[in-house]
């Protein structure tokens, strides 16, 4: 690396950082020290206490403030003469469009979720800006480089989807602690404290689809003036006792499984609770309403007994009604809500106890319920250093030296930091490749394809309907497009595409966006009568050859894009789009 070349490449570079958290703080610091002078940084979060163990640009006094802004201020202290532009905003906002990205020489991600990463990936492809991606968990981390056309894009390799569980496992046959947590959080907590209008599977039986009798619904009604303890016992007995008995009544379910045991409050607490819960009214009006504090349970790492869990259950329930009455009906689980975490831990543990699943501490339960990612400063620092090294290579266009680097916890062949050459783009990647040769999921009757065109901010949903027959004369291509209308303004524009020019000047953005409307495609064939009813002139749909097997617009535009406007029935859904058919399918081109 010639240092002259390097220095000048760095000095003149305009860099976008997405994320000012664990990786972001380390990255901003290292970029500044390395001589970068124009850095933009987007982050929508505010600072929390649990960030401070690694996001070292932040202090206790900054809790609640914007990460992007505080990070900027902190770095300017040791590099006062550089330019750092913070955006306290969601990277998915429309203002961060393709033109915005085009201003930058390289984009550096320090994100913590797949959704945002995908979004940035697509915009970088649309803007043709290099992207350096990264991620860390505990002692593991990696840095990857993405250049349109030269390397894989971020989505060329499928990314694992977040784990979901079958409903019946959660409602009836849990076998792991996480199932109990999901039950406690998404069912019980939601039922008791969340929006009552939302559907809730708490009382659904796995054996049949019918809900339990209305009697059950009454159980959850908390009548004003009623004794909270009674209410608590009633809920407890219902979900841990009654519901389990009902489930047990279905022999089939338990043929090959361990039977759960119902737990009733009288078995755990024969006497009145207030005696056992001791100092209940103490410490009123404290900010931190906590069942643990109220019960004298000090250590979140302790695993409570069934009795202790039950006490926490009652006490947290009681405290919600006593101190946070107003919020009830609007609450969603928040891992930073101590009382909610206590309730969910207790409920999950009691259920676990019932099903013979090992109990967990509040600390562990919180991690599972809150999907907490364990994190340390050192891994983030290492990854940040690697990101900057890649970024500099990108700026120098030193393409032979680009590497994906993996930071391992245990060495592999002596290597703790393992560089690997980037792969070529995946030709069937539906995000970055030219042609859509494989769709992401099976396309069958009833499939809805959602297409986004980030470059022109169009989107379109295509409903696929299977049809057995098509008229050979009128619909030689075996497909039918219905539901789109020509742009109302520019009547003279009969031309179809081909020139690739967007005619979006004929349309307002609102029209397009409000019409995330559905275009119907009928593939294969159906009886002729149905077709005539639609008044569709199929010869006008496509002049090009459309492959027989697919009949999807993506495929058609690959071949030829001479599509003309259609006459559409008034009764059909109207989608106002431009005549530029190609723009509809631009997603794959990017």
């Amino acid at each position, binding site marked *: *690396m010639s240092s002259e070349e390097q220095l000048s490449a760095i000095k003149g570079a305009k860099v976008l950082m997405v994320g000012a958290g664990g990786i972001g703080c*380390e990255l901003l*610091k*290292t970029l*500044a*020290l*390395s001589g970068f002078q124009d850095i933009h940084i987007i982050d929508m979060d505010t600072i929390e*206490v*649990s960030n*401070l*163990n*690694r996001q*070292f640009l932040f*202090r*206790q006094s900054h809790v609640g403030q914007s990460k992007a802004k505080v990070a900027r201020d902190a770095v300017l*202290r*040791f*590099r*006062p003469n550089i330019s750092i532009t913070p955006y306290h905003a969601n990277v998915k906002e429309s203002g961060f469009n393709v033109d915005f990205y085009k201003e930058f020489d390289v984009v550096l991600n320090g994100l913590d979720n797949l959704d945002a990463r995908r979004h940035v990936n697509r915009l970088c492809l649309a803007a043709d800006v290099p992207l350096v991606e990264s991620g860390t968990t*505990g*002692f593991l981390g990696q840095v990857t480089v993405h250049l349109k056309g030269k390397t894989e894009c971020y989505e060329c390799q499928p990314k694992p989807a977040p784990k979901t569980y079958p409903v019946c496992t959660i409602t009836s046959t849990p076998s792991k602690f996480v199932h109990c947590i999901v039950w406690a959080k998404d069912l019980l907590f939601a039922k008791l404290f969340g929006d009552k209008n939302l559907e809730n599977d708490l009382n659904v039986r796995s054996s049949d689809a019918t809900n339990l009798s209305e009697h059950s619904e009454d159980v959850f009604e908390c009548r004003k003036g009623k004794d909270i303890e009674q209410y608590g016992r009633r809920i407890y007995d219902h979900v841990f006792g009654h519901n389990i008995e009902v489930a047990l009544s279905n022999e089939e379910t338990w043929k090959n499984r361990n039977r759960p045991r119902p737990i009733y409050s009288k078995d755990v607490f024969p006497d009145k609770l207030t005696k056992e819960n001791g100092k209940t009214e103490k410490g009123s009006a404290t900010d931190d309403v906590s069942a643990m504090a109220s019960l004298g349970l*000090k*250590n*979140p*790492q302790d695993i409570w007994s069934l009795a202790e869990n039950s006490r926490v259950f009652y006490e947290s329930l009681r405290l919600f009604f006593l101190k946070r009455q107003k919020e009830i009906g609007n609450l969603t689980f928040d891992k930073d809500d101590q009382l909610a975490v206590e309730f969910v831990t207790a409920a999950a543990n009691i259920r676990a106890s019932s099903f013979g699943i090992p109990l967990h501490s509040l*600390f562990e339960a919180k*991690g599972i319920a809150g999907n*907490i*990612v*364990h*994190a*340390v*400063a*050192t*891994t*983030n*620092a*290492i990854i*940040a*250093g*690697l990101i*900057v*090294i890649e970024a*500099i290579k990108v700026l120098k266009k030193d393409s032979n030296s680009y*590497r994906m*680097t993996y*930071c391992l916890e*245990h*060495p592999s062949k*002596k*290597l*703790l*930091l*393992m*560089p690997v050459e980037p792969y070529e783009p995946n030709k069937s990647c539906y995000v970055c490749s030219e042609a859509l040769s494989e769709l992401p999921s099976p396309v069958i009757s009833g499939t809805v394809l959602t297409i986004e065109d980030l470059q022109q901010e169009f989107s379109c949903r295509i409903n696929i309907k299977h049809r057995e027959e098509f008229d050979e004369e009128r619909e030689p291509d075996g497909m039918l497009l219905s539901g789109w209308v020509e742009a109302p303004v520019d009547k003279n524009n009969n031309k179809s595409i081909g020139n690739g020019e967007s005619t979006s000047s004929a349309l307002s953005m609102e029209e397009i966006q409000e019409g995330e409307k559905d275009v119907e495609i009928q593939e294969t064939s159906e009886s002729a009568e149905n077709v005539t009813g639609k008044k569709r002139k199929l010869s006008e749909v496509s002049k090009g050859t459309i492959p027989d097997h697919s009949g999807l617009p993506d495929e058609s535009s690959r071949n030829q894009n001479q599509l003309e406007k259609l006459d559409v029935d008034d009764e059909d859904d109207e989608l106002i789009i431009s005549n530029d058919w190609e723009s509809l399918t631009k997603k794959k081109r990017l």
Partner: protein
Amino acid sequence: MNGEELTEQETALYDRQIRVWGADAQRRLSKSHILVYGMKGTVAEFCKNIVLAGVGSVTLVDDREVTEEALSANFLILPDENLYHGKTLAEVCCDSLKEFNPMVHVSVEKGDISTFGVEFFGKFDAVVISCCSLAKKKLINQKRQKLPKRVAFYMVDCRGCCGEIFVDLKDYKYSKKKLEETVECQLEFPSFEDTISVPWKALPKRVSKLYFAMRVIEQFEDAEGRNPGETSIADLPGVLKLRKELCETNSVNESQIPDALLERLLIGTSEYPPVCAIIGGILGQEVIKAISGKGDPLKNFFFFDAMDGKGLIEDISEPKPVS
């Protein structure tokens, strides 16, 4: 500093890292004392990491003045002359480090570390040195060898795109997770002097070239009476001559230590911030592991070269006698 349990404040602050190494390890960290010598950029990174991790105390030693060069790779030094005038590097860094974690006791020890007695080193659980001449490295390592108590010893240096870490944990007992179980392990580390005395010919052929290159530069500086890092491209002929001698003595081919590599190390006397971050991070992890007694330690050298992007571990020790 604390009782047996972690305080509520500690649990809240350290939540995310306790999920990595456990509450027990966190407790041990909070009782540990680290000595750090040579406040360059890499060491600044390392200090930031262990302060954030929540060690009990960090003692800094570096009486040098703040210079332009120091400012370039050390983010602990704010470029305000009013702030650093009259203060040593250690003092300036100390002020900044304290801010990262008020629960960690950060302080400065003044004086020439070569004169500190053995008992001084005994106050610490880990000693990290940088910017040391060959003589100083040996001296400090020896002093700490004499201690009955086990004190972890680390040596770190970064030159341009390259970085090196040396680890000496003496007789080290630790535990690690193997599948679902916890396994007890033991390792014996050679001292620094013993390590560099291992004949080059006895080492596996594929040992990192950086190891040899750093030893050549180290000996060159020693022979010429230079301060660590006080070299330039003008020294290349002298260095190549020394390489020739060393290779002859050790019966190895000179190609083991490429010219280009030596050149880079001679020129790159200032630190490269991304490498500081990487080396400081690896070193931080090692010290945390050693204090907590959990996880395989790095034995006994780590090398990183930004040119090829590899971070690798080399075990430079006496080959075991063939039975």
